[in-house]
């Protein structure tokens, strides 16, 4: 096989895993679920972008950002600003005292579109800003923190504090940001109504394909020399530094990639859900995004997608049916994953699922003869066999 392609797919096993996930997302869900539920899965998939970015940063790079909501939110807000401007043309806002500006500005006695909003009339600029604004912020944070060799723990706390600052800022500057309610009532994208079932189906597929694009890119990074350096850095940072590598720049790079993934997720979130609010930016959503990656397995890109889907299914189900139980469950999940399954679902699959698969396979392939031979051996030396028989 072509070596680059092989790298991307992660060998035979990686290719199978990717195919299974693709079948699930692209075929099974659209066929089985109604428009409302499919839109919900689409929303969960946008969280999977963040989780995939976290696998890169945290699982491989060893940097735990507790502020991925910042980038998710910034991407989402950039998209929402464009859509809001389109929704508030002078014609449909003529009852306002200043027509042509978003409704929440009018409520806050702002009479002119702020400078910050002006460029978001252009769709090209918006697409650029969705990626560029979060990545620039990540770059600044990364440059200042990693170049000074700030430790992992401090980095986590500072990113969390930045998430807090951004939330307080968005809520406080109601006239410019829509405040607590966020930017709502988004209607069309370049004249195309995004609220119809058909549009939601198309947007679902767009975000699914973008997600697979991100997964392939992340796989490429992990399989390259950079990926090995990241792992080496995570385990023995000093040694990598002594070998002559600039550790900080690798960390900054992977942090920026994570930010870009989150931002794409945020923009797709806005398009599918139809609004953006500070409740997706702050400390709580940011740390919940970490648990998606942790449940899926911090070293598994595909696991991150499953983690995001499962935790969110659980959240929706339990907070609809047993709201009392949900926080216990979520809290328990955090504790259990960290203490007992540090590699998440992917780790469980590696230790149990694969063994189960290989146990079936030899039965089918291997000649019948070996079986009776294998058993007495197991009885003679029980200790190694004990572990495998549950």
């Amino acid at each position, binding site marked *: 096989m072509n070596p680059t392609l092989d790298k991307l797919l992660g060998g035979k096993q990686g290719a199978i895993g990717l195919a299974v996930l693709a079948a699930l997302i692209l075929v099974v869900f659209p066929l089985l679920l109604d428009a409302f539920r499919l839109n919900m899965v689409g929303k969960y998939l946008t969280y999977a972008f963040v989780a995939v970015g976290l696998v890169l940063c945290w699982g491989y790079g060893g940097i735990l950002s507790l502020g991925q909501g910042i980038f998710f939110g910034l991407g989402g807000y950039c998209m929402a600003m464009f859509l809001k401007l389109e929704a508030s043309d002078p014609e449909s806002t003529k009852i306002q005292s200043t027509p042509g500006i978003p409704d929440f500005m009018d409520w806050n006695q702002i009479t002119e579109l702020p400078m910050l909003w002006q460029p978001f009339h252009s769709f090209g600029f918006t697409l650029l800003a969705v990626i560029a604004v979060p990545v620039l912020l990540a770059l600044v944070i990364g440059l200042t923190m990693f170049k000074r060799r*700030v430790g992992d*723990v401090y980095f986590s706390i500072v990113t969390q*504090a930045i998430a807090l*600052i951004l939330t307080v800022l968005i809520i406080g500057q109601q006239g410019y940001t829509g405040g607590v309610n966020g930017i709502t009532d988004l209607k069309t994208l370049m004249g195309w109504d995004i609220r119809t079932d058909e549009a939601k189906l198309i947007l679902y597929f767009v975000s699914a394909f973008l997600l697979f694009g991100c997964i392939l890119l992340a796989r490429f990074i992990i399989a390259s020399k950079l990926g090995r350096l990241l792992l080496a850095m995570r385990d023995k940072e000093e040694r990598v530094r002594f070998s002559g590598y600039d550790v900080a720049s690798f960390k900054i790079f992977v942090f920026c990639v994570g930010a870009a993934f989150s931002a794409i997720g945020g923009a797709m979130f806005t398009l599918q859900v139809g609004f953006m609010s500070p409740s997706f930016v702050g400390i709580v959503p940011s740390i919940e995004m970490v648990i998606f990656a942790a449940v899926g397995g911090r070293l598994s890109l595909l696991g991150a997608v499953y983690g995001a889907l499962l935790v969110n299914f659980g959240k929706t189900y339990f907070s609809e049916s047993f709201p009392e139980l949900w926080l216990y469950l979520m*809290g328990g999940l955090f*504790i259990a994953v*960290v*203490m007992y399954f540090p590699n998440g679902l992917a780790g469980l699959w590696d230790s149990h699922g694969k063994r189960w698969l290989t146990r079936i396979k030899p039965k089918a392939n291997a000649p019948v003869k070996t079986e009776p031979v294998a058993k007495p051996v197991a009885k003679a030396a029980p200790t190694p066999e004990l572990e495998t028989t549950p």
Partner: protein
Amino acid sequence: MEWLSEFGAIAAMQGFNGLSVFCVLLLMALGLAIIFGQMGVINMAHGEFLTIGAYTTFVVSSLTEQYAPAFGPYYFFFAIVLSFLIAGAIGWLVEWAMISKLYQRPLDTLLATWGLSLVMQQTFRSIFGAREVSATLPEWLMGSWNPTETIDIPRNGLFVMGLTILLTAIIFLMLYRSRWGLQVRATMQNRVMSRAVGINTKRVDRMTFALGCGVAGVAGAAFTTIGSTGPTAGSLYIVDTFLVVVFGGAASLFGTIASAFSIAQAQSIMEFFMSGSMAKVLTLSAVILILMMRPQGLFSIKVRK
């Protein structure tokens, strides 16, 4: 001359306001300075230990009101001790069941204790309901103290301030003047060597964590004199508290005091000129900017790593 005295009164009250915020921040940060600053454990559930203290005080206050009204004026001292004991005991259990298994993985401690905080919040909600509750204050904590006619200083603020000074002094003596404190500092600086010279590091860890949680409980008891308590009351301040400890420079008690003071004064002075949310944004941003330039915090002890 009249405007001058009026200005003086405003300045005094504004200054006292800043001092109250400082006491609140410092009370919260003291426990964390022990747990995070000395042990390096990131306890995201620290705010919930504070809430334990606050709810303990509430329960003691309601029980006193119901069964022993004569005990009313003095119940608060009893509540403080009880808050310390309960929060400390729960902290001891948490260290035994969870933290002790995660010392090698600080980032995982962060996630696990966040989970713990969610569980504790929901437990509070199930027991005490989602509504905020407040303890009945004894007579001597209500009203205010008027040194002059125009200056008006609330008594509960004075009480919290006194408690803060007392608690800080006790912690200082324990950490820097007692044999136990010596063992704690030795363990944190070099665990292997400490074990080699005969310190039971496991016991030191457990006691230190329990003490930090107990101090948080006392802080919670003190808060009931200022405001009401809800299930999520503690989690609102957890990030600010971490910033105070980090900004002061971990492992430095004096740094924690200085950073709590500067953050509190900056915030309350700015609040005089702009909205509360902008004051908070500017204060926190300034803290982070300074931390980016000086990651070790304001005061740091030099440790060879």
